């Protein structure tokens, strides 16, 4: 049984529990619920993590901005043609330190999601992000990005406006930024669309976030011409936070409560804020040249090869 199925069944049990007065029946239901809970959360598969990473109740970039920073001033537009609502960005204060915050924006309702294009940016979004990052560099502000996207939007206009070029440009420019960059994967880290905001000095992930070359659905459809084999694909893709941490690509993990983060979660903001303050304390001591050199090496060693 998948985590999603278990959660559906638990909700059903909760409804029955509320309706029934019969103590024997209540005991049965409670026993089944506790069995389901330990089964579901005690043995989480990679695809369960994908499910948790995509849950609409999960905190989004706006929640992190509101609860970690103060004085957020949102900035709009790429100064070329458009403002992409799928990417939010601006200036904020982290305990008095001015920083630039950028993130993929997903909605919690269908209406919001249509507005934010389900967190799938167009080239204008990446160009807005780059504009804000170059501005951060000018004013010596550290940059913090929140990654939560299924991927860059695959559409007619996004291709016409140079989706590939926009992502490529961000990768190249982010590598050369002379201010600290910290990228935090809070939900889905999908493909080049995620990478275009996450070439960073430190990459952090939440326990139930995922980061992969492609969505499991896309992966299954490319490799086996069958998107319905996404579950199977997820197990092979090594896309969980633990996989990436063990692989040495991610520097730090943040634990989550059983069943993942939701609206009631509180401690994550405090933990993340403290981690940011500590890490920026270290990174802001480095010269721009040292930061660029370190970042270069961080990516340079991924995919190491030899010829002997």
């Amino acid at each position, binding site marked *: 049984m998948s985590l999603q199925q278990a959660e559906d069944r638990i909700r059903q049990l909760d409804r029955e529990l509320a309706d029934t007065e019969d103590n024997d029946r209540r005991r049965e239901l409670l026993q089944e619920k506790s069995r389901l809970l330990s089964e579901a959360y005690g043995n989480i598969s990679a695809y369960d993590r994908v499910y948790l990473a995509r849950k609409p109740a999960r905190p989004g970039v706006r929640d992190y901005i509101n609860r970690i920073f103060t004085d957020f001033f949102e900035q709009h537009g790429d100064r070329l043609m458009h403002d992409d609502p799928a990417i939010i960005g601006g200036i904020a204060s982290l305990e008095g330190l001015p920083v630039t915050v950028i993130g993929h924006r997903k909605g919690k309702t269908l209406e919001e999601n249509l507005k934010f294009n389900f967190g799938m940016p167009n080239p204008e979004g990446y160009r807005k992000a780059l504009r804000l990052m170059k501005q951060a560099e000018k004013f010596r502000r550290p940059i913090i990005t929140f990654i939560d996207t299924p991927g*860059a*939007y*695959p*559409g*007619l206009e*996004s*291709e*016409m*406006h*140079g*989706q*590939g*070029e926009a*992502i*490529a*440009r961000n*990768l*190249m*420019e*982010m*590598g*050369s930024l002379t201010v600290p960059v910290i990228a935090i994967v809070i939900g889905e880290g999908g*493909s*080049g669309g995620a*990478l*275009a905001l996450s*070439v960073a000095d430190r990459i952090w992930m939440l326990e139930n976030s995922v*980061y*992969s*070359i*492609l969505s499991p659905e*896309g*992966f299954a459809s*490319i*490799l086996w011409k069958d998107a319905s084999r996404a579950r199977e694909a997820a197990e*092979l*893709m*090594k*896309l969980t936070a633990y*996989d*990436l941490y063990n*692989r040495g*690509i991610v520097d730090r993990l943040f634990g989550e409560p059983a069943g993942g983060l939701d609206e009631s979660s509180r401690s994550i903001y405090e933990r993340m804020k403290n981690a940011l303050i500590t890490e920026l304390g270290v990174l802001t001591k480095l010269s721009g040249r040292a930061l660029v050199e370190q*970042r*270069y090496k961080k*990516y*340079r060693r*991924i*995919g*190491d*090869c*030899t*010829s002997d």
Partner: protein
Amino acid sequence: MIPLFQERRQKLTQFKALRPRPKTSTASAPEGLYTRCPDCKQDYLSDQVAANYFVCPGCGYHMRLTAHGRLRLVADKGSIRELNAGLYTTENLDFPGYSEKLTALEASTGLKEAVITGVCTIEGHSTVIAVMDSRFMMGSMGSVVGEKVSRAIEYATRRRLPIIIFTASGGARMQEGIVSLMQMAKTGNALARHHQAGLLYISCLTHPTTGGVTASFASLGDIILAEPRALIGFAGPRVIEQTIRQTLPEGFQRSEFLLEHGFIDRIVERHEMRATLGRLLRLHSPSARKGFAYISHPVK
């Protein structure tokens, strides 16, 4: 009967495809004698197609070229010295069936990976060159491709040489997962240094160039050239059609479309590529400045 038939074929192909060839079966023709153009679906003598740089003598369609064929076409004869030819990855390649597939491809193509890198001269000008080959895992970028391209760029930066990259790729290589994705950042960062050193990068896009390669080094050239009618894009046409639920317009994501939308500098036919590259290298060579003083470039 057969010689008569061949003679007739030869005469007709001399008129290129101006006059459509009568529909006849080629089932009895010896293997490889004729090549069918994937675009106009006409058959031409393979020798004639090869002599025409694998450009269809009829419709001008640019067929896929092997990396070695491409090098022969653009580099001065005997000038190529390959770099990092025997490179292999120390990454874990445990994706089911993947290492077997690599071994089989090595045997069938004679290539070790989907890119060849080296130094050569083009019309006398020294340059670093990288050429992708779509026969090898659809030219996809895994750790070896990312590493070879990065090393080639770094070599060019150290030696203060230009770099020319011919792309032909389906994108990042699925089987190596996140490591493939990170090669996009790695190659992009290497290009940033080459760029900051004031050196020339010419990107030459050939059919097909999509996904993670489009979204990294392919799109970052100081000058971007493309072969006619090549498919160039980030998302594949099928994915886009499924997303927007409508059929894509004719010519969408082809070189001519990209030129119109401002993403490439020029479409160059295959037989003109060598001369075009030679000309660009000459325009960027320090000796082209003749008596003028050197204008120092701003260093970041």
